[in-house]
């Protein structure tokens, strides 16, 4: 039967069709290829030019380079504010990912196992994701205002005074107004790493970031939940039954069966949320600004102010390239890993 199909005529016909398909595919891909290459890759190349320039201005595109070539990046590394921004990015990303992925997973398990009103709760937890970061930033700013919001709740509910009985001081955190950095390891690093003396900031966890992490996780855990719900729905009922028969029930079923099966979904969620965290700008800009001593500053805010307030376009471009590299470090390995599997 197969021999009958692949007669020379059929093969020739297929080849013709394939040959005809090549220019068609090229034609269809050309616009997006052109647009992507101009608006992404040409502009990245342009930004590299600006980042290496000594005095590029919008009205006077002067690409003469600095001497040495890396001078703008050198200035960036020695900038205490940018150091604080990188510290904040790392701390924020770690805590935000952990909280939103773990909370998203538990919400998904909860919603998945609901016997009624599943759609309602799915919508309820996903709703914050639909809101704009600016809107939620303003709301959380007032919730974390030391005079109102959460602290008021702690006071009127009696939690604050109960805490006072136990520890001697009232439970009224400063939230985003806190200048405290805990777990500072910078002096340790200075001793270990040669050239560690360029570190000008306390390398620890700024407490003000805790409030920002809570707000960001609240907004994006619904997204993580949706991803995990999709994953849970893809696990066939027979798998559950089979594991039940094998004696894996309750928590054991989740730990040994569900979590391993959800791993690809978790990976996708983590990559998407990491790139959100690395590019975080609007939520923090509306919620706390740079914070006391740059406790809640982010590279995005640094780029914006360096370019359009300080008018140092070259330093701003250099900082934006550092952000690009950070995102690339996360996204490219993910894409490279996914590619072959999908074609297989």
């Amino acid at each position, binding site marked *: 039967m197969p021999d009958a199909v692949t007669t020379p005529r059929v093969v020739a016909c297929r080849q013709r069709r394939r040959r005809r398909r090549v220019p068609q595919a090229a034609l269809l891909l050309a616009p997006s290829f052109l647009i992507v290459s101009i608006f992404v890759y040409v502009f990245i190349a342009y930004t590299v030019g600006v980042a290496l320039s000594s005095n590029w201005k919008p009205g006077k595109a002067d690409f003469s380079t600095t001497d040495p070539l890396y001078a703008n990046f050198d200035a960036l590394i020695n900038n205490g504010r940018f150091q604080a921004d990188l510290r904040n990015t790392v701390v924020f990303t770690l805590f935000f990912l952990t909280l939103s992925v773990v909370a998203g997973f538990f919400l998904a398990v909860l919603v998945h196992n609901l016997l009624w009103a599943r759609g309602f709760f799915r919508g309820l937890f996903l709703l914050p994701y639909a809101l704009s970061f600016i809107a939620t930033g303003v709301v959380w700013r007032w919730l974390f205002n*030391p005079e109102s919001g959460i602290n008021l709740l702690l006071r009127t509910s009696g939690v604050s005074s109960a805490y006072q009985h136990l520890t001697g001081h009232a439970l009224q955190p400063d939230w985003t107004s806190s200048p405290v950095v805990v777990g500072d390891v910078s002096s340790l690093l200075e001793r270990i790493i040669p050239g560690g003396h360029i570190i000008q900031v306390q390398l620890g966890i700024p407490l003000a970031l805790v409030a920002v992490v809570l707000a960001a996780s609240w907004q994006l855990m619904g997204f993580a939940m949706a991803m995990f719900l999709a994953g849970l729905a893809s696990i066939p009922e027979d798998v559950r039954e089979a594991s039940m028969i094998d004696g894996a029930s309750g928590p054991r079923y989740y730990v040994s069966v569900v979590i391993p099966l959800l791993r690809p979904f978790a990976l996708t969620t983590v990559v998407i949320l990491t790139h959100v965290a690395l590019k975080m700008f609007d939520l923090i800009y509306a919620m*706390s600004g740079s914070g006391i001593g740059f406790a809640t500053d982010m590279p995005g805010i640094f780029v914006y102010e360096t370019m359009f307030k300080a008018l140092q376009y070259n330093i701003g471009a250099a900082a934006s390239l550092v952000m690009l590299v950070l995102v690339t470090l996360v996204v490219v390995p993910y894409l490279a890993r996914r590619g072959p599997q999908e074609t297989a």
Partner: protein
Amino acid sequence: MSRKQVATAIVAVGLAALGASVASSSPNKGAAAGGKLEVFSWWTSGSENAALQQLFKATKQANPEIQIVNAAVAGGAGTNAKQVLATRLGGGDIPETWQTHPGGELADYVAQGVLEPLDSLYAVNGWRKTVPAALIKSMTYNGHIYAVLVNTHRANVVWYNKALFKRAGVTLGPSTTWAKLAGVATSLKGKGITPLCLGDKDIWTAGQLLEEMIVGQVGASGWTGLLNGSVKWSSPQVAAVVGHFNTALGWTNSDHKSQDWAGAVGLLASGKCAMNVMGDWAYGELKVKWKQVDGKDFGYTIIGNPSTFVTVGDAFVVGKGSKNPAAAQAWAKAIMSPQAQLAFNRLKGSAPVRSDVNVSSYGPYQRGAAKVLAKGVKVPSLIHGQASVKASVGQAYSDAVTLLEANHDAGKFGTAMDAAIAAGK
């Protein structure tokens, strides 16, 4: 549909979209030869827009054939507008006129070669005689003048709530010193009143508080020296003021990091705290939004010499290579007219830059401010980008104050500022 048809359809849709985009962009280009005047600013809030309309009105009266296009961009105290403008300048799409600050920001445009010098306008209209010399100087680069100022706000004002002062039994005259302020603060605290209102979610308000404290202490000549590098920010004089600033931060409302400047003015008006160091845009906020009466509900004083005026002006420039240079020149002339300046500043709450404008119809605060602007000593505000130093110095100052709020270290602050001034010359 066959594949061929699909491909044809896609190409057709693509061509149609291309045609539509060409069609939509052509009217702008075609009409440029007419009397279009594009005014680029960041005045979008209620009172600001009302004031801007007065400038439009004056221009239309003098030039009925001009069509004004209001290209205002909201947000970020002008930073968003500057971002849009930078893109347009980069693409060679130059507006006829745009808003800027005299000082580092203006100098940056001059260096890019995108401005027309306005020497002949100044000469023909005799503006050099009516605009204070210090303001002329702030707009002059390489011997040419590049902008016209529509207003000047005063940055170094201490506003206070009269009812709270009465309750604490304290008073302040037309000028004050740090020692007096500290005494007043102690009395206020004794009555359980928060002495200082601050809303430094955006760091410039704290930067302004420190700036006005430094100007009040070192005086106009000392401030000029700090800006040009002849006086060191690491000097004991400045370090002492920084110490006072650290003390003053302890007098503030506990939610100061969640409030903005307008929020702090609101706290003052509603009696939550007693004093606020803010530019006289707070005057409009107190009067219009909070219905407060000048002299009855609130008072004001100056730290240091009362004839020192820390300037925050808004200027307009004429773009080089715009489509309608004649309209831009007509705009500059119209907004410098005494009538336009009078009408604009009445709504904006600032002082006209022309010393020959009759301000007798203004309220007492604005009359006083206009008088000091005409006769007093003018120094530029650094935090508001008015000083003749690179814009990066202003940013370095903001950053240094941000760190100061966390570490309270006058030494580090001084070193950082000395380095910034040296790098920003």
